[in-house]
């Protein structure tokens, strides 16, 4: 799928993606020559069709996670299906409030928020946040950091 700015004869570049939470999606594309923007709006069927392909309009900001499609789309999932290898016990990450080299500290309020994510995908979402933090040298995860990550990564659907 490509969008062509007809007056400029230029392929428009992806600029922004918004997921309002009602099953629809808005993807904004901008002409690199004239800066004109257009938004592609998809209805829930079209959004689900794209999502079902396991692709992200505008490109991926984080690598595709193992079983991402199944874990984000299956209804009636078994909450204890997965054991996450990097999913250390909460007590271990909070012990003494002293960061272990290279290890991310999850603040209790961040963990509370993570608890609201369905357990079937929680480990996957936690790893995405952790990778984002590690790449930026962030050693403490707070709800504010999660907000920044969500916006930057386009994780509105997670």
């Amino acid at each position, binding site marked *: 799928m490509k969008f062509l700015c007809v007056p400029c004869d230029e392929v428009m570049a992806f600029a922004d993606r918004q997921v309002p939470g009602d099953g629809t999606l808005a993807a904004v594309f901008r002409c690199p020559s004239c800066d004109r923007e257009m938004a592609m709006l998809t209805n829930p069927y079209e959004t*689900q069709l794209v999502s079902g392909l396991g692709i992200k309009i505008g490109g991926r900001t984080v690598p595709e996670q193992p079983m991402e499609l199944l874990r984000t789309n*299956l209804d009636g999932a078994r909450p204890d299906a997965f054991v996450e290898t990097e999913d250390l016990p909460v007590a271990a990450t909070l012990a003494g409030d002293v960061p272990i080299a290279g290890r991310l500290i999850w603040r209790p309020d961040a963990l509370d928020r993570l608890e609201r994510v369905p357990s*079937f995908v929680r480990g996957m979402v936690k790893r995405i946040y952790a990778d984002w933090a590690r790449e930026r040298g962030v050693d403490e995860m707070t709800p504010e950091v999660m907000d920044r990550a969500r916006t930057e990564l386009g994780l509105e659907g997670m």
Partner: protein
Amino acid sequence: MRQIRTYNEVGASSSTIPEQVVAQGERLAARLKDIRWVVGIASGKGGVGKSALTANLAAALANDGLRVGALDSDLNGPSLGRMLGVAGARMVSGEHGIEPPATDGGVRVISMELFQEGDDAPLRWRGPESDGWVWRNVVETGTLRELISDVAWGELDVLLVDVAPGTDRIGRLLDLVPDPAAMILVTTPSEMARRVVARSVRLVREARVRRVGLVENMTSWECPDCGAHTDLYEPSGPDLSGHDGIDKWGEVPFDPRLARSTDAGTPFVLSHPEAPASLAIHEIAAQLLRKLEEA
């Protein structure tokens, strides 16, 4: 009329959708590289014993020392997890994929049963409540792709894929694994089963699957008291073993203990290794290996 450049004439877009699809294919190919032989076990017809044959073949091959994986591609009616005794097992989600649970005999198993809550859970996907036909097939094909590519199978000699009923499901597997090492088509001697399986034979022939073998299941019954053999069906319908040159790789006699044992999570070839049905399955496993080893 103004001329607007076509998709192929303009430069790359920043959507990266083609690149994402290519990346999925590369991930699948990378995973398949560690698997020596992918073998589909299909029919087209339901109720002919594909899953029980898959479970018992997997156990027989592992018992012979091979590294075996078993994938239940029947998303709507999964049973392989229970038949191989791993239902309820938890999967380890690591950086390199999902570690599948393994049976005592070492068969690594993936089935939708492992992901769903409750034995009676119907397969449901999140999405728009009506008109699921618009997108459901796309999600299910993507899920099957993940069940192959996102599972840390490790190095395998054989990955057996239990294919759901319906010739379209054979096509779905061939979309993802276009060159399987072999396809076993399972039928019963009944006319209806043979007629449906004939369609599958044609499909796999047209797809140029390298090795296709026919297994006739539930052919006869042996009286436990007097030992007399009784054919369960009056053979009728198309002669599949002569159909398009397809080889018959074996027959499995009916034994009610096979269903009981396998349904309870113990493959019959392990619980009753000397039973005629077990010996027949071992012979099919040996025949499969002979065919796979052929150049």
